[in-house]
């Protein structure tokens, strides 16, 4: 950082992962009062999408919209950053399957769902948001890169930004080519202004000093942290829920770390 960064507040928070559907269910685990146990991931029904649109979406898109909805209450037309490492494995599998059968045909819905920004597009329609929205990936470092993009938007454009990060595991035959085993998504609204119920403030920097990544305080979450690129957010989610003032190191590009200083004033 060439200059002192202003703190960016995390004013809302949502999560969806096995055994952690919604902040209410997740809070005892994220604050160390309960152990994490895996459980079957439920079918999510994002309320913002009309039923006819919802039918056209996949589990991956619903996962993104579910956490986006919960973090953006009441609904505001915010600028948004969507981050996902892999895109929609389900759609990739379906489309590549159909391309092996002659005559080749891809359904129009499958095709428009195949773009990486499909969740962002559905969200903008549901939230009626004309604001800018981007969709990024940096593979296993996607959570920290998306957070960085969201923070740069807050800092340089001085506006609130909705950050939505999500990844959904593959089924056969693609599952053998990805380490991802669990679904995981989180979303929050970042702002230069502290809200009444703010979860805390962050300042971020990049460090190349060879540090190891931060682990969860609740050791039962370690398995989940390694099960999905977006679950690398867990140490940050713990710090926000525990109101811990702490410096965290999240996996970032080229073995660097995103240094996240969490404060609660």
């Amino acid at each position, binding site marked *: 950082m060439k200059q002192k960064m202003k703190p960016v507040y995390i004013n809302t928070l949502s999560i969806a992962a096995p055994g952690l559907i919604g902040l209410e269910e997740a809070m005892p685990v994220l604050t160390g009062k309960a152990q994490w146990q895996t459980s079957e991931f439920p079918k999510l029904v994002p309320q913002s999408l009309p039923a006819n649109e919802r039918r056209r979406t996949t589990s991956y898109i619903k996962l993104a919209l579910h956490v986006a909805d919960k973090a953006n209450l009441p609904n505001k037309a915010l600028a948004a950053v969507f981050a996902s490492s892999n895109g929609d494995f389900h759609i990739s599998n379906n489309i590549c399957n159909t391309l092996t059968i002659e005559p080749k045909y*891809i359904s129009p819905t499958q095709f428009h769902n195949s773009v*990486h920004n499909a969740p*962002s597009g559905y969200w*903008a329609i549901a939230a009626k948001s004309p604001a800018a929205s981007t969709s990024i990936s*940096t593979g296993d470092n996607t959570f920290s*890169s998306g957070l960085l993009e969201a923070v740069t938007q807050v*800092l340089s454009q*001085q506006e609130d930004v909705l950050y939505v990060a999500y990844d959904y595991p593959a089924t056969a035959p693609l599952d053998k080519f990805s380490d991802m085993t669990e679904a995981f998504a989180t979303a929050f609204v970042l702002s230069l202004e502290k809200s009444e119920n703010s979860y805390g403030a962050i300042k971020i920097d990049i460090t190349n000093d060879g540090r190891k990544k931060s682990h969860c305080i609740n050791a039962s979450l370690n398995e989940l942290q390694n099960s999905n690129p977006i679950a690398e957010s867990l140490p940050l989610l713990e710090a926000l829920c525990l109101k811990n003032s702490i410096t965290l190191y999240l996996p970032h590009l080229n073995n*660097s770390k995103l240094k996240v200083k969490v404060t609660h004033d």
Partner: protein
Amino acid sequence: MPISPLIITASSMVNALGRGKNATLSALQNKKSGLQLSQDLDFSTWLGRVEEADNYLLEEALKIFSCRNNQLAKLTLDTDNFRKAINHAKKKYGADRIGVFLGSSTSGSEETEKAYLKRNENGDLPSDYDFMHTHNFTSLLDYTQQSLGLAGVGHVISTACSSSAKVFAAAHRHIESGFCDAAIVGGVDTLTQVSLYGFHSLQLTSSDPCRPCDENRDGISIGEAAGFALLEPITKSRSSDAKSAVVLKGYGESSDAYHMSSPHPEGRGAASAMQKALESAALSATDINYINLHGTATPANDAAEDKAITAVFGNQTPCSSTKGWTGHTLGAAGITEALICMLVLENQLLPANLNLKTPDPLLNIHILSENSEQQQNIKNVISNSFGFGGSNCSLILGLQS
């Protein structure tokens, strides 16, 4: 809010018009399209293909990233003295202070298509298939960073056809916020069965070379392309570094919030992106001397874009779509057309809207039917990129004033 301009100090491009900026410029000057009739699809369509990418091998140490998309990336990095400029920038800023922001709609997803055709009797994909180093979007970023020896911030934006326009905005924000001192922006997109058959199923491909803004336009011609540009803050780039005096003056991003694969009929999101770009450049509509249209040649896109431009600029500003030359290069369209705009500024050449036979009488904008190389005094131009999911981005490039 007005932004600080960034200077483009190096750039490279490869597309169906050939390898290097001079190939594109020469094709523009000679009105020579790069589109060719496809020979190996189940339907008739014209493509902007880069044959040189087929057998262009990656560095031995980076072979793990082998796929046609990264081969096109390497071909382009090896063009227009781009690597030399980056080596110079590395000495100036340090390898970890140059960001890399790249757009792609395809990445190396062609490898997945090929792997599905080679499944065994159990349905397993071949063991040498490697999703993470080819199909995953980070493949393009990781390959580019490692090929150039860079270790700074960056990401891949994939917002369909606006991807490699939005990278300029992301790069600007990362520099502005202090997370890097300079940035490479770019885009790489290659022809895939998914995009070819996908657009065909939406009935959005033409069986003729695409005819943007024509009364009889009936769809796109798909192309592939790559381009890179080095952006530096003006205060830090000595004038001797500047191969051109073209700067990024503004950007505007918006969402249609209307439909997943059709533009808002009144061009609501498109107009908002252009208006925001003007505000960030602190320019008014009359300061813009040329508009490079998104101009895909689908009936809906060109009509909506016409309404949006008319609302923001009126009907006097010269406009053209250059997709009749390159085809619609999807995730690489933003960078390709931004670099065409750079050529427009450097050469004071306004390119025609190729393949225009009968201008659509329902369009109000001023469409250039011929190249214009007279004394132009072109100072500022805007480039439009709009994508599926209603993702819009407009860039303003201009001569350094």
